């Protein structure tokens, strides 16, 4: 039963916001068309957050956290933006962006695994550092070479972003669920001492996880720049909270030891649908509320976060009877 909570929240959200939204449907085709472009917008908007959140899920599973994720994505985008927007972008900027992403991930990972700095402090530090580097790279400029790169836009568009997400989700899901990795990471998160005793190379795994998160940051940066086509030093500030909130809402435990990729998937979309719904219902708000609708966004996100986690952990659903021998 438990795994239906998040989808149920999501679907009821969609229904509710479609109902109060500023759009009246004239015909079934009209509805279908609206819904298609709605899904496409939602998906392309959330792609950067979703990809980053997948990386974050693994990090939280190991009882770590990465506050630097937004700065990291911004920095990767900034580095990529310093190249010209032509075909050569594909073999110059993109590989360099990937390299930078892996190096940044490695930096976080080695700080945490090798130097034993607590994750929250290490990544708080790198968050400030990476942001500083963003401004060093960019100065006060806003650059947009992405706009002119042939074919690049595809990743910010509907089928491209969807394809990327599906590949990542399926690949990651399969790799995570059907290999030892998931169990190892969760054991590291749940009890690092026991993990060491169980012969898990804890330090190596931690570094791998942060480097992987760096890779996801790279994909996220690609989706972000392909969609928004420009970047500046202050891009994406505050995104780390969105990412972390979505992952937590998805049921991954902040103290480590339990994670859920599909939960993250729904977590991201629950927040995105809420966001989109409030954006599209300004007219309804004006008529029915004594205050501005946008204020409600803060309140609702807070309630959904607390309520979602509470339902995830506390609702007394009948425990399904597993086969026992």
């Amino acid at each position, binding site marked *: 039963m438990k795994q239906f909570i998040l989808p149920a929240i999501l679907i009821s959200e969609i229904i509710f916001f479609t109902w109060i939204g500023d759009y009246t449907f004239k015909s079934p085709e009209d509805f279908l068309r609206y819904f298609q472009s709605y899904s496409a917008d939602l998906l392309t908007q959330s792609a950067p957050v979703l990809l980053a959140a997948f990386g974050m899920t693994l990090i939280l599973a190991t009882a770590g956290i990465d506050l630097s994720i937004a700065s990291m994505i911004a920095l990767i985008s900034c580095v990529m933006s310093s190249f010209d927007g032509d075909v050569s972008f594909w073999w110059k900027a993109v590989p360099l962006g990937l390299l930078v992403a892996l190096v940044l991930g490695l930096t976080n990972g080695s700080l945490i695994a090798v130097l034993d700095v607590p994750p929250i402090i290490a990544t708080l530090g790198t968050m400030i550092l990476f942001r500083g580097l963003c401004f060093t790279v960019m100065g006060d400029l806003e650059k947009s070479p992405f706009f002119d790169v042939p074919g690049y836009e595809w990743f910010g568009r509907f089928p491209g972003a969807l394809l990327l997400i599906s590949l990542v989700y399926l690949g990651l899901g399969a790799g995570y669920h059907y290999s030892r990795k998931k169990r190892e990471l969760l054991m590291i998160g749940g009890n690092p001492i026991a993990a060491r005793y169980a012969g898990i190379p804890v330090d190596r795994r931690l570094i791998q996880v942060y480097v992987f998160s760096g890779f996801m940051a790279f994909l996220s940066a690609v989706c972000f720049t392909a969609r928004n086509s420009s970047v500046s030093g202050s891009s994406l500030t505050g995104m780390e909270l969105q990412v972390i909130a979505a992952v937590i809402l998805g049921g991954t435990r902040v103290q480590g030891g339990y994670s859920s990729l599909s939960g993250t998937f729904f977590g991201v979309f629950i927040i995105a649908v809420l966001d989109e719904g409030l954006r599209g219902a300004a007219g309804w708000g004006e008529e029915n509320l004594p205050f*501005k609708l946008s204020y409600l966004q803060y309140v609702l996100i807070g309630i959904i976060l607390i309520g979602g986690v509470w339902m995830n952990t506390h609702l007394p659903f009948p425990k399904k009877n597993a086969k026992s021998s």
Partner: protein
Amino acid sequence: MTSPWTVNLKSRLAGRYSRFLLQRIGFLLIGNAILLILIYMMIQEGGSFREVVLRAGPNVAPTVLAGFALTVIIYTGAIDLSIGSIIVVAGTVFGVLSAQESGPIVAFVGCLITTCVLCSFNGWLIHRLAIPAIIVTLGGLTFYRGIALILADIGMENFSGFISITNESYQWPGKKLAGFILLFGTLTALVLEWYSRTIRHFLALGSSEEACQILGLNPGAILQKAFFVSGCFLSAAALVYVTRLQTIEPSRMARGFALESSVPWWLEALIFSEVKAVSSERYWEHFFFIL
């Protein structure tokens, strides 16, 4: 030759803290002294060192007071990320009251009570819902800001994103008394830290909830108490913060406040690789702020 006084002092100090902690305080004092010297050297020609130090007090007052509030909560092993947003609600209440010309005292009291109540409410929520404090307060972070905006919109006619405080009489706690409030808050914190059994209970809860229960304490009540005490400190912080502002903008004020106030904690944890400190370490804050 050791005078009786020093012996007395030694035993008294040792009574309160283990040697380990005393060493640490010593380290911090030295660290602060070094920072002070650094700042002194960094001041450019013609700048006044005295002025920097004097001005720093009132400037950091809200952060330091909020730091005390956070300290109390961190003692119990919880955390409160929503303190910034709570200050926003308090500020909004203050702003709305002052806009309605309800008199400075009423506005101040409204601000203090709001903070205290919301902080205690956080504690209650964490206890009742039994989910980690970090999640509850992460939710609170956005929730309270929304509440503040709605309050302002309903409480004021023609609310246009900000409440302007034009009457000087609404501003004396922040502008005139900030230093004193900080001093008073610090003294209270120190006295609590050194002479209070309650604080030890918070620490006990932080080290082991189960042990607390077995030893005959009530963890829920302690948590609630901790959030209340924290609320008291935070309300002082809120008062100073709010009354130093010319305009109150619920959507933008006090952003990143929780992070700012907890910086010393992270540093502390980084240096000593554990979260366990005494309030006097708040001085860190002071100096980092000037830098």
